[in-house]
């Protein structure tokens, strides 16, 4: 928080374990990355019309680590269609699965409103995910029928059919969905741990002083947030350089009005401008630890005005927010009661 306080110390309200939840979505993504490392077995077959072509033998493995996935694509000419018969044969040559794929490929040109281009669509591939029951060697038998052009005329050329076989494929959409849901759950956890206060009070003042009395203290930290804005009393641009810093004082009193903490520090003042408007702003967060729950009064003070190079910057508003019972994911300087501190 930019506070360098001699009285500050690290607080036991530091809570680190929820940060581990941010690693959880990496698990499904890691599995997905590792599964992509598996080198697929490639098959290439040149299939003339009407002939049954056997692929090279390949192994389909059974097991819990992923599952076999087989893909086939027929490289048919543009503007043609085909019927592809595929049979999966076991080591004994018996058909254990057979299917037919209706494939097509179309292309052309388009012209509209002075623009033109080409288009191409097609569906001449298939994917088969299954388990073989037990590990064994298999073969594919592929046969082409009705390789026709757009007008329904037969095309004589043989077709190249390319295949790939993975034995340990995983359900990629489910892994991505799991990563997203886990990330959302982790964010809910972080919000529950670090974003929710036991109590929150806000006071806005148009003077250089603001104070809040509230029940605060006990487990966790008290966070005091201060935001202020100064403006020129006229619409003209500033004559000189605005001040770069301001003095901030925080005082905390107990239920009987006895001061239990006084802290003074220098905060950075930023010069902003937009559409001809100029203003100064300051923002500071201070963490406190109040061991005992009780009524406390938090009072902050900033300069009412700045006078610099003939300019008079007047405070427009000062906003004080007090949040109680917060935990923090990282070490922050913490002020304790009965401390009189001077920071930068």
């Amino acid at each position, binding site marked *: 928080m930019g506070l360098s306080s001699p009285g500050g110390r690290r607080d036991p309200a530091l809570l680190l374990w*929820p940060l581990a*939840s941010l690693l959880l979505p990496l698990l499904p993504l890691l599995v997905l990355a590792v599964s992509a490392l598996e080198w697929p077995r490639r098959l290439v077959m040149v299939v003339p019309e009407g002939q049954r072509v056997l692929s090279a033998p390949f192994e389909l493995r059974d097991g819990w680590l992923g599952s076999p996935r087989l893909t086939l694509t027929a490289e048919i000419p543009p503007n043609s269609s085909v019927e592809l018969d595929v049979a999966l044969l076991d080591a004994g040559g018996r058909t254990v699965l057979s299917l037919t794929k209706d494939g097509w490929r179309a292309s052309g040109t388009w012209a509209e409103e002075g623009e033109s281009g080409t288009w191409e669509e097609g569906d001449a591939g298939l994917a088969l995910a299954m388990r*073989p029951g037990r590990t064994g060697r298999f073969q594919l038998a592929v046969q082409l029928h009705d390789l026709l052009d757009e007008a329904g005329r037969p095309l004589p050329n043989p077709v190249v059919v390319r295949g790939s076989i993975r034995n340990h494929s995983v359900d990629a959409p489910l892994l991505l969905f799991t990563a997203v849901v886990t990330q959302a759950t982790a964010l809910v956890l972080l919000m529950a741990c670090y974003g929710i206060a036991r109590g929150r009070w806000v006071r806005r003042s148009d003077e250089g002083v603001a104070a809040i009395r509230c029940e605060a203290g006990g487990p966790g930290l008290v966070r005091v947030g201060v935001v202020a804005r100064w403006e020129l009393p006229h619409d003209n641009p500033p004559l000189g350089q605005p001040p770069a810093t301001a003095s901030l004082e925080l005082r905390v009193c107990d239920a009987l009005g006895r001061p239990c903490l006084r802290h003074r520090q220098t905060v950075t003042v930023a010069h902003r401008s937009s559409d001809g408007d100029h203003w100064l702003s300051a923002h500071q967060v201070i963490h406190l630890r109040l061991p005992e729950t009780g009524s406390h009064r938090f009072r902050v003070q900033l300069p009412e005005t700045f006078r610099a190079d003939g300019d008079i910057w007047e405070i427009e508003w000062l906003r004080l927010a007090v949040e109680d019972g917060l935990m923090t994911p990282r070490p922050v300087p913490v002020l304790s009661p009965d401390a009189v501190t001077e920071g930068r």
Partner: protein
Amino acid sequence: MVDERAVVMVLAVTVVTAGTLAAITRPGLWRLGQEGTPAASSGVRYGGSYRSGRWVTATPRRQDWSGFQGRGPGAAK
């Protein structure tokens, strides 16, 4: 009293474990010899199905289909 933050953490661990294991082991995936056929992708017709652990070839029947299924240049632009 159960800390709700611990419950959310347990929920996150459960979600990631269940989702990752299901994606790896794929318990619902069709197995050779199982009744029926695997899930069919676009334009795929199975030539039979498993009944009582045996692949039974269906009666050959030529499906009447027009060949081109493209949506045309307007949709492809």
